């Protein structure tokens, strides 16, 4: 608890003790009134002061005003205990609210505990701790086991494993070696490493992420704005209604010649005022959104504002980019088809023939081969651009390339049935088989699509620049509803426009991409989700939601979090308004007394706040 909160707590305890003591004393009349004034002022002096200042500044109709009028009125009517109690419970409620909010704020910052406090620099042979802000790009910093990586950079010495869970929500440690890029905010687990920084602190990933999360509650959702507008009309309305309730019935009574019953109607009007306080709504809704955003960031999902959380929950259409989003974007040998030889030999020939090339396809061949290549065995390498290579390996002439290369050399290759890039191999003019290289679908991609469907997404669509054959095969494997292939980047925007025009207004369209080349589409969609964004500034800038790792199943998780958060928000709005209106009605009819009013005010607020803090829990989604 802060100093301020403690002070309020002491005042609450003191006032409560005084109230009990005074109630037990067998006192009557004005002495009782004067004695009750003591706890009343102890607990309520600041509210009264604020109410008076508000009136002076022309800012009437806030909660302070409501509470001041209600309690002063009750005191005047001789309902001393009720008057003091309303003030006491109001303060308890406020204290609880401020404590709960402080607590969840702390929880969220703990989840996002990635801010590094220092960087180690070597000065005259000794390690010195310096402020990360002061480290210029290009400096060498040292990260010891157990420490956070303070700045983005490249490892120049040493190897270690990194815990990236604070950034990605991924619990499996990542190995890094000399030459690898390293991202700030990860925790170094095992060995000491030297890092050459590439960015200043404020440009580093960790600063960007913190900035993004901290500013997320600035972008307010429609529900939040609704409540703000609502409160603006609601409080004055209630005040006038209370005034009418206090005056009209007694005057009508008088005109009809009955007893006026002024006291009774004023008492009802005051009850009315206490019930009406809109605190429960005003606090619980931003708290829910904040919790949802915080909970999501703990799972490696960064959401740039409450409004995006709201739109995400309404998404009925999810459009994917293919490469890098649903597939890994790296080429891999997916099929080895030998003829008149065995798989290992075929792969070995391919890897050796391509050993001098740096093309991604050659790289994937070498990777699949997995053993070191003795380049002294390779001679006379010729590259035929767009066709393939020929090389002399251990005295044999190897041809590795596409169908055209084979035909030019009068070799008849087989026709593969798989999808992807084909490398045919011939040894000394005789065909020995082919290898198939293709982009690999991410492990969780199929689950992700299924989860999205289960979460209520109506249509999943894939857009890609890749060939129809490849695109259709991926779409079929993953169970996507629709696929548009062979698109240029501009076509993707047009396609999104078309889908936007066709879909029902209420169902929002989310686009998921890897942030490379698809910034225009990311911004055109109702909501843009960029994935695998660790370290990619462009993606963090362009998207509304950023997935820190490249696991597509996080999309469904984000959607579940958004749905849960919105459900909590609606629960609170409906619950608070229903209880309030019911109590207002009962209060006007004289059925609900001051004690019911206190529950309707403070009780509802406490329940709504507790419900709102549920949004933070995302573990079991």
């Amino acid at each position, binding site marked *: 608890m802060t100093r301020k909160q403690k002070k309020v707590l002491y005042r609450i305890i003191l006032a409560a003790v005084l109230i009990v003591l005074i109630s037990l004393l067998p006192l009557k009349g004005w002495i009782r009134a004067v004695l009750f004034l003591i706890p009343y002022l102890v607990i309520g002096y600041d509210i009264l002061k604020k109410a008076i200042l508000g009136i002076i500044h022309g800012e009437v109709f806030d909660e302070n005003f409501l509470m001041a009028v209600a309690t002063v009125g009750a005191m005047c009517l001789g309902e001393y205990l009720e008057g003091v109690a309303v003030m006491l419970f109001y303060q308890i409620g406020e204290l609880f609210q401020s404590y709960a909010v402080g607590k969840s704020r702390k929880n969220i910052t703990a989840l996002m505990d990635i801010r590094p406090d220092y960087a180690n620099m070597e000065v005259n042979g000794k390690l010195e701790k310096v402020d990360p802000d002061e480290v210029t790009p290009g400096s060498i910093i040292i990260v010891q086991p157990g420490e956070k990586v303070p700045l983005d950079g490249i490892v120049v010495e040493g190897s270690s494993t990194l815990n990236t869970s604070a950034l990605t929500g991924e619990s499996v440690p990542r190995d890094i070696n000399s030459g690898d890029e390293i991202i700030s905010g990860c925790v170094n687990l095992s060995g000491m490493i030297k890092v050459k920084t590439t960015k200043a602190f404020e440009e580093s990933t960790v600063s960007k992420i913190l900035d993004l999360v*901290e500013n997320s509650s600035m972008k307010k959702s429609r529900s939040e704005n609704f409540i703000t507008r609502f409160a603006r009309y609601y409080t004055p309305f209630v005040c006038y209604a209370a005034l009418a309730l206090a005056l009209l019935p007694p005057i009508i009574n008088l005109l009809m010649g009955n007893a006026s019953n002024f006291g009774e109607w004023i008492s009802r009007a005051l009850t009315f005022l206490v019930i009406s306080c809109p605190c429960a709504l005003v606090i619980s809704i*931003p708290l829910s959104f904040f919790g949802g955003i915080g909970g999501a960031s703990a799972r490696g999902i960064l959401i740039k504002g409450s409004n995006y959380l709201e739109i995400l929950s309404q998404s009925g259409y999810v459009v994917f980019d293919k490469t890098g989003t649903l597939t890994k974007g790296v080429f891999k040998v997916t099929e080895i088809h030998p003829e008149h030889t065995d798989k290992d030999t075929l792969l070995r020939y391919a890897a050796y023939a391509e050993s001098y090339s740096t093309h991604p396809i050659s790289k994937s061949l070498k990777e699949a081969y997995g053993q070191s290549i003795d380049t002294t065995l390779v001679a006379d390498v010729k590259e035929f651009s767009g066709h393939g290579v020929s090389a002399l390996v251990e005295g044999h002439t190897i041809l590795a390339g596409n169908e055209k290369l084979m035909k030019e050399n009068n070799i008849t290759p087989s026709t593969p049935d798989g999808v992807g890039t084909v490398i045919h191999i011939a040894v000394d003019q005789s065909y020995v088989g082919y290898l198939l290289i293709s982009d690999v679908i991410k492990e969780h991609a199929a689950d992700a699509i299924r989860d999205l469907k289960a979460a209520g997404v109506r249509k999943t669509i894939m857009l890609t620049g890749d060939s129809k054959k490849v695109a259709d095969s991926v779409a079929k494997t993953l169970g996507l509803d629709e696929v548009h292939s062979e698109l240029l980047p501009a076509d993707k925007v047009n396609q999104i426009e078309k889908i936007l025009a066709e879909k029902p207004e209420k169902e929002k369209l989310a686009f998921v991409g890897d942030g490379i080349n698809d910034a225009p589409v990311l911004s055109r969609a109702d909501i843009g989700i960029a994935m695998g964004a660790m370290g990619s500034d462009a993606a963090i800038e362009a998207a509304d939601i950023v997935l820190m790792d490249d696991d597509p199943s996080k999309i469904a998780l984000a959607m579940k979090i958004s749905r849960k958060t919105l459900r909590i928000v609606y629960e609170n709005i409906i619950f608070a308004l229903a209880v309030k209106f019911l109590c207002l009605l009962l209060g006007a009819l004289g059925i609900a007394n001051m004690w019911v009013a206190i529950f309707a005010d403070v009780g509802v607020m406490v329940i709504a706040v507790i419900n709102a803090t549920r949004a933070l829990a995302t573990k079991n989604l």
Partner: protein
Amino acid sequence: MKKTYKIEVDCAACAQKMEDAAKKVTGIADATVSFMTQKMKIDFEESADESGVMSAVLKACRKVEPDCEIFI
């Protein structure tokens, strides 16, 4: 020009009042107050004198919420 300030405010409604008050100050194009993160984001109008505008913002906020604090 946009800038973010740390603030101290006790209740969500008070934060809303501060936001409304800050928006009315001359030299301010837009203002947002987040009760959750205890931050005020100010979008200054061009050619606005930052420190002068901010002391006016603080004054306006104190008027609606005497307890509040803006760390300028």
